[in-house]
Every structure is written in structure tokens, then in C-alpha cells.
């Protein structure tokens, strides 16, 4: 083994789907959306890369980041996750404020 053997397509796809799933498991709205978007961007970039060495290094970077995300998602599930007003579902209509002085 001398030349860099880039990770297989399957390995990349598998890492991608695990990363997406992990990002999606954040309870907090903002973090979940951010990491989903970032994961998609990162893998799109990886997809467009042709230099094997760079693919390898980006892949390794993504593996490391997945470990961080996994732990972070667990902590976030434990302590985060209040619903935000943007996440309000139709069953939870917002109250409308009316003035009491007229």
C-alpha cells in the first residue's frame, strides 16, 4: 500500500447517511437544521472532488466530525428540545393578542 486509496463510494454513502441521521437526531430546531444543511453541503463538496488525497482527508475529517456530532446530539436530546414558535403545528394555533382597552 503506497498510493492513497480513496474511500469507496459505498463507504462515503454510508458515512453520509449516518451523518444525516445523526444531524436529524438533534432535538433543538436550530442545531438540527444547521447540521443537516452543513452535512449536505460537505458531502456535495466531497462528491465533486476528484483528487484522491483530498477525498481521503475530507473523508477523515467527516468521520471525526461524526463522532463529535453523535455525542453532541445525545447531550442535546437530554437538555434541549423545547419547541420553537416556528415549529408550531396547526393543532397548536397561536393565541392572538387583543387589546383590553377598547
Amino acid at each position, binding site marked *: 500500500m503506497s498510493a492513497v486509496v480513496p474511500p469507496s463510494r459505498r463507504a462515503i454513502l454510508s458515512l453520509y447517511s449516518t451523518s444525516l441521521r*445523526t444531524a436529524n*437526531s*438533534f*432535538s433543538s*430546531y*436550530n*442545531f438540527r*437544521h*444547521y*447540521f443537516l444543511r452543513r452535512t449536505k*453541503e460537505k458531502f456535495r463538496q466531497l462528491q465533486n472532488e476528484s483528487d484522491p488525497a483530498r477525498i481521503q482527508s475530507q473523508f477523515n475529517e467527516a468521520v471525526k*466530525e461524526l463522532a*463529535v*456530532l*453523535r*455525542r*453532541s*446530539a*445525545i*447531550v*442535546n*436530546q*437530554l*437538555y*434541549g*428540545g*423545547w*419547541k*420553537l*414558535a*416556528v415549529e*408550531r403545528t396547526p393543532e*397548536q394555533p*397561536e393565541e392572538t*393578542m387583543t*387589546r383590553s382597552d377598547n
Partner: protein
Amino acid sequence: MLPRASRAALRRTGISRAATLSHGRRGFVQPSGADRASVMDVPSTYQGEAHFTPRSDMLGFKLEAPRREGSAKEKIRPIYLDMQATTPVDPRVLDAMLPYMTDQYGNPHSRTHAYGWEAEQAVEDARKHVADLIGADPKDIVFTSGATETNNMAIKGVARFHKEKKRHIITTQTVRSCKFLSKHSYSTNSQEHKCVLDSCRKLGEEGFDITYLPVQKNGIISLDELEAALRPDTSLVSIMTVNNETGVIQPMKEIGTLLRKHRGVYFHTDAAQAVGKIPVDVNEMNVDLMSISGHKLYGPKGIGAAYVRRRPRVRLEPILSGGGQERGLRSGTLPTALAVGIGEAARIAKQEMQRDHARISELSRRLIDGINSRVEHVVRNGDVNGYPGCVNLSFSYVEGESLLMALKDIALSSGSACTSASLEPSYVLRALGAAEDMAHSSLRFGLGRFTTEAEVDFVIKHIIRTVDRLREMSPLWEMVQEGIDINSIDWSQH
């Protein structure tokens, strides 16, 4: 206790599943995000519910993990658009900090054992990340408790160290008086943060001369006025890089070049709102001292940093005396976990800055265009070339307090800015003694790394609705709609 078999199953499925397993009664871990978790079948080896049959000594209490008060379902929180006040801690930052809040609790100043060494290593790595973000040498970085402390340390420190020969300090104007009120001119729009101004006021009491430079209409200082204000006994010029109310960015490079020509004048900048958001380079800007705050760049609160140039050396009198840590400038044991936090935040900021900035610009444009297309008489305060993550808008004919109250689903600050002269309400209003916020109200929208399009659209929708409703109730607005020039009315008869 869970039965053995299911515990083994838990272990097999991995921790993250364990968190989601706990959906119903069986859970001991009760994540508040449970409504999003999936319920899994119990493993085939699971031995039945008997284990959870209440015993008489439970006295009717349910077998349940402690629930957090006001957990997920019942409470809906407003969306957060106040990134100038503080930013959420990036989960990656927290992940870097946690080891130093559990096992790696050593004192970074302990030299005799591994606990100390590993903590010291972590602090030094963090220092390097902070230094890299601003183009400095790690040795120039001093950890402090935040930008407030750094500002105090820099301003008082430099002034007092040089007090024998130099007794003059320049900063930007305290307040621009916006003449809104009849009786007292209403003063808002501090160009500097309170801690800078208060440090200067204190020095003023100690006998220093303080010059408060005015800013131009667009919030930017004039280089000519700055040069004219310099005196032979000026020791320090302190100018904020990015304004926290309006997002106005000062021409730091030009100011730095100008000040470099005057030997012995130190240049301090409060870059709390700039570092990690826009490119900042201490050598390009020629600054001698810089204040950085952890919680403005997705790091933890309670930590900040001072950049103190060593070549040419900036000398200052430390505020804290003690163990001589941090080059003797800031004694006291370093909070390892917090230092690691600001370090990781700086590392991520450097890596993400371009992407963050592009995205925030896009969101900012979306917000401004969205509001402008549907609401009239809205003015953006500050400079159009300012930091896009800080959008300060003024809405005419809307009472400020009501606007904020009605927007309870959005966490916002009222922007006390009034750099825009066009917003000055007519003398009529003044004659009526109307309060400033009856005539118009300013809101500061702070966008950040974690803001989404959906949130921006939500804000636009709510602003449009609320402003329309409030204006409908406003007699002034009615007159404006009818084309009555409110300046032409002779109010004095009433």
C-alpha cells in the same frame, strides 16, 4: 433496574438509541425531545412488565424518571434573533469543553503532575486557535472573563501606566443626542459599549482628559476629526470595530495606519462583535490591544480574551494582582473548560466564517427585502455596508413598546439607535411632548450561524401583521394616510 437482558440490548443498540428507547413509562433517561424519538419494540428476550408493577411502598407514585419541569410539549419558546446580546453555544464547542468538566479537572498552572500538564496543553491549544483567528501570536493572547474585563484592563491599564506623561484618551462619542423630546433631548445610540464609556468616565474622575469623537451620519468616524483630536499627550485611542446596535464597521485599517504615524499612541479596539464574524487581523489593522468575548462567537459566557501586542511592547498596569498568571496581566487560575470553549469556538469560526457570512448576508437580504416589500415607512439604521447579521430597522408611526409586546414569539432587542436623521419626528410631535417611541420604534434583528430561512419568513410575516395592526390603531397613521401634513396643523389651539 432494567432486566439484565434488556440492559444488554440497550448496550447493543448503542447509547443514542438508549435515549430514544425511553419513550413511554419504561424510560429512565427522559430526553425532552421524546416527541421526536421513535418507539422501538422491546427485544425478544424482554421478560414482561412485572418488573414495573407498583409495590405497596411506592404509595401511588409512578415509576418514572424525573421529568424536567415544563418539558418539551407544553412550552413553546420564541425564536431567537438577538445574536448581538449573546449567541448559543455551538454543540461542537460544548463537546470540546465537557472532558474538562469531568475527568480532566487539573489546574493548568500545576507543574508537577499530569493533571496540570494536560490542562495546560488544552489551554495553550485554545490560545493558539484564538490567536490564529485574529492573525496574532499565541503569546499575545491573555485570557480574561470577557470583553468587559478586557476593555477595563486595556483602557485603565494603558492610561494608568502612562499617567506621568500622558493624560489624554480618545474614544467615540458617548451618546448622540437625538432631539426627540421637547423637554430633555433624548440620548441614545452609544457608539461605544457601556464598559468602554464607563472606564473612560472613571479615568475622567482620576484626572484624565477624555475626548469623545462624534460620528458622521452613517455612524463612521471621520479620520480628519480623529487626527485633529490627537495631542502630544494622547496615550490611547479606543474605537469599536463593529457596533453592537447598528452593525456599523469602522475603517480599522485606515485608523490603524493613521495612528501608527503618531508614536506613543496606543490603539485599542473592542472587537467583541467582529471577531469570528468578519475577517480581523491585528497586524493589518495595526491595533495594539483588542477585546474579544467568547459568548459572541458561539462560545461560552464568562471567558474572553485580550490581545496585547508584545512587539512593539504595550505596557499596562494590571487590574488584578496575584499569582502572575497570563504574563502577569491577569492573575487567577484559568478556567480550563471555558478557555477550551473559546478556543474551539475560534477554530470553528475561522473554518466557517466565509460560509457563515455568505449565509447571513443572504438571510439579511431576505429579511430586509421581505419587510420592505410589504411595509412602508421603514428605515434601516446604520451603514448599508455594515455587518449583515445586525439589522436595525425603524418603523414609523408605531409605538415601540407595543411592537415588542406583540412580537412575543420573537426574541428581539429594541434598537435604541437613531443614526437616521430622516426619522426625527416633526416638531409637532415634540411640541406635543410625545415620547420618542410613540413616533417610531426601532428593532434590532440579530441573525447568526443557526438562523434558518423559516425563521426569517416567520419574522417577516409577524412584523407585517403586527405593524399593520398597530398602525390601524394609530391616529397619526390615519392622518398620514389621508394625506394630511401633520406639520401643517396648528396644534396649539387645543
